[in-house]
């Protein structure tokens, strides 16, 4: 026990004395949260709109008024023919045009479709706004995220990515560093059990990851205004399960890699790429080709992100995420067993 404690103290000192890494570890969540929360956003806001109107009917005038009043659209010009509006869009001076047909009261949208996702959103928003509250034939109601804020989507994804990165990368690098420096040889020759070495390595990173988790949750709640709808206890519990999974992945990487560089590349390439691309963080899993869907089935963050979306945003109980939690648990058991089996008491 005394050995275990002194091991953890030693490991914490390594972490605390490496100022630059600490700065990155805590700076990265803050920067990412702010970036995704404020800068990189798919929210519709201030779309530069041209209104095309030969004499406006009273109805159209009301619609233009609603467009101008909404925070989504900014009316930059009023022209009289659709051709002129198209020229403005092609000249990069407007994003979309709203054409009011003079007689029958119909509306046409001319949209810059170079970003199809955004174009679709603009059209949907514009249709709703111009139609007005009473006249709409189809009425949409957004559950959980009525304002359609993208932060709601990104916060769970950032958690999934950062926790994986911090735990897997940092543990694997810290173990491989000892191999590289030759201190691992002495640790192995000592009477200490290798299992203890591994567990003691993981504990400080577990604490660090929990700190980062708290930081993200606080920022999400108070800076980005994302609600924590579900029970805080289960959010943290599922996160810790996920952290354990990331730690065992890091351990596995450390038994494969011989140098810090390889460990870094393995965790960056083999972990980060699938996390970003296949976990449903950026692209919905459902719209991927079948093969990629199979691959994404073994990407752990997919289940974590999905569970977090349900727990945090939808506010459901733990029973509704039982499937995700069970899969994560299974993954932890399998990975940890392999990692501990692979961790050698000798050099080969």
């Amino acid at each position, binding site marked *: 026990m005394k050995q275990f404690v002194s091991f953890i103290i*030693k490991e914490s000192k*390594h972490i605390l004395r490496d100022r630059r890494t600490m700065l990155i570890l805590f700076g990265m969540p803050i920067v990412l949260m702010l970036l995704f929360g404020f800068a990189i956003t798919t929210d519709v806001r201030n779309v530069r709109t041209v209104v095309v109107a030969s004499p406006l009917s009273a109805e159209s005038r009301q619609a233009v008024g609603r467009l101008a009043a909404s925070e989504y659209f900014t009316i930059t010009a009023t022209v009289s023919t659709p051709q002129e509006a198209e020229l403005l869009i092609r000249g990069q001076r407007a994003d979309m045009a709203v054409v009011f047909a003079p007689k029958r009261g119909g509306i046409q949208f001319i949209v810059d479709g170079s970003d199809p996702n955004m174009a679709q959103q603009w059209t949907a928003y514009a249709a709703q706004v111009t139609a007005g509250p009473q006249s709409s034939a189809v009425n949409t109601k957004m559950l959980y995220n009525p304002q359609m804020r993208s932060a709601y989507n990104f916060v769970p994804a950032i958690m999934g990515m950062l926790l994986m990165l911090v735990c897997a990368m940092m543990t694997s690098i810290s173990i491989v560093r000892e191999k590289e*420096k*030759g201190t691992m040889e*002495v640790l192995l*020759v*000592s009477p*200490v059990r290798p299992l203890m070495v591994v567990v003691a390595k993981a504990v400080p990173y577990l604490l660090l990851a929990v700190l980062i988790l708290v930081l993200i949750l606080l920022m999400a709640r108070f800076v980005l205004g994302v609600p924590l709808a579900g029970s805080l206890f289960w959010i943290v519990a599922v996160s810790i399960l996920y952290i354990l999974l990331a730690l065992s992945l890091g351990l596995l990487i450390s038994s494969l890699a011989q140098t810090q560089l390889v460990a870094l590349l393995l965790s960056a390439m083999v972990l980060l790429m699938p996390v970003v691309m296949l976990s449903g963080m950026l692209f919905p899993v459902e719209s991927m080709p079948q093969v990629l869907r199979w691959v994404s089935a073994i990407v752990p963050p997919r289940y974590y992100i999905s569970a977090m979306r349900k727990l945090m945003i939808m506010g459901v109980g733990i029973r509704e995420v039982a499937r995700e939690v069970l899969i994560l648990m299974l993954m932890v058991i399998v990975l940890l067993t392999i990692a501990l089996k692979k961790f050698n008491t000798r*050099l080969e």
Partner: protein
Amino acid sequence: MNIIEVNGVSKHFGRVTALENVSLSISRGEVFGIIGPDGAGKTTLYRILCTLLIPETGRATVEGFDTVSQMKKIRRRLGYMPGRFSLYQDLTVEENLKFFATLFGTSVEAGYDSIKAIYRQIERFRNRKAGALSGGMKQKLALCCALVHSPSVLLLDEPTTGVDPVSRKEFWEMLASLRERGITIVASTPYLDEVRQCDRVAFLEQGRIRGTGTPENILSEFKDIFNPPPLSLCKTGMPTSADDNIAASSASHAGEDAPVIEVSHLVKTFGNFRAVDDISFSVRQGEIFGFLGANGAGKTTAMHMLTGLNQPTSGSGRVAGFDIRTEYEQIKRHIGYMSQRFSLYEDLTVSENIRLFAGIYGMKSEEITVKSRELLRRLKFEDHKDDLVKSLPLGWKQKLAFSVAIFHEPGVVFLDEPTGGVDPATRRQFWELIYDAARRGITVFVTTHYMDEAEYCNRISIMVDGKISAIGTPAELKQRFQQPDMDSVFTYLARRAKRSSD
């Protein structure tokens, strides 16, 4: 009873034979030396003894316990210092010691008696980070860490490599005192003076034991390897430009009589630490100049300033006719440089390496072809020109690295500890190449920790605490300080250092 028994142990890594049918027995209380060139299998033998590797065939026991089946029992009785100092660089001296003490289930207080003689020497630096210690101090700390649990056997894998002669002497004095206390010591070393302090030694080569016995017996049995006939000191002096037009053309800036390296009142400070403290000297063309000094005396800093890698704080100097303050780009083009760590690309072949470095120095393609054929013939490397460099023995790599460094016929070549890790015979062959280069008019500026190599130089300087405390021919220095050999001269001067250990 023998404390260590090795019987018919073999070990391969892929197709490489690390150990082949090795048998040894070491009796209690012995200081046993394992000698042999790099890659002979010494480290593998150590790792088998300390249970880190499993032998393929044969059996090894330590204190009667089998290294495979009774691993735990051995690990408790063993002190092991791997080749690299196994310390945590970002922990302080005291933290390192405390950590290793708890690791072995003891405490610094309980183990203090067994380490106090050594620990006292570094105790005043106990709050300093291990990474900021000099080589000699790291070595003392590593030894303390290996001793704190009072092991009965101490395994030391090249503990003094890269450590200056004074620290090395102190280290072996410590080992002698440990022996008095009955600790069995197994140590490997490339230095002959250390070999002579062992009770018995085993000479390992290419994974086989060539011989075991007292140091005298082994050194005389294999005297071709350990005591090569001394180099005939040829008269290099000043070559006339008539019989050596290559050197004359490359050193044309230097002119006939002007020295190739000239330095006056050179100072380099880091903060308020004077790493190089007002040094002045000059080196003539074609001279072999040995630049000696203990670890931390300021050799590397001085060399960096001469090669244009670093700017002096004050003072002036010219190398190959160029000012080191303003014309460092020119200097880089007119010198050759070989360091111990970086010299060749391991994953390129011999001829690719030659072509690459010649290209970097702007040589013409036809010239490269002609000269590289000539070089390969001279080194007798023709059959190996398409071999990857990493497959060559260390001694060959060093010869090749040196030849590549002077391939573009520079006026001066700087060699930073060029001959680490090889046996005396291979080192001697290396020095033949140096003499050859000097004969062709290339000035050689070399640092080394081997004092027998210092004797090969035309002139040497010895740096202590950032200053040059002696300069002259080896004979002059020995006479001036009334010492029998260069080793004693060095020790005599370096022991007077004030900052050597901090």
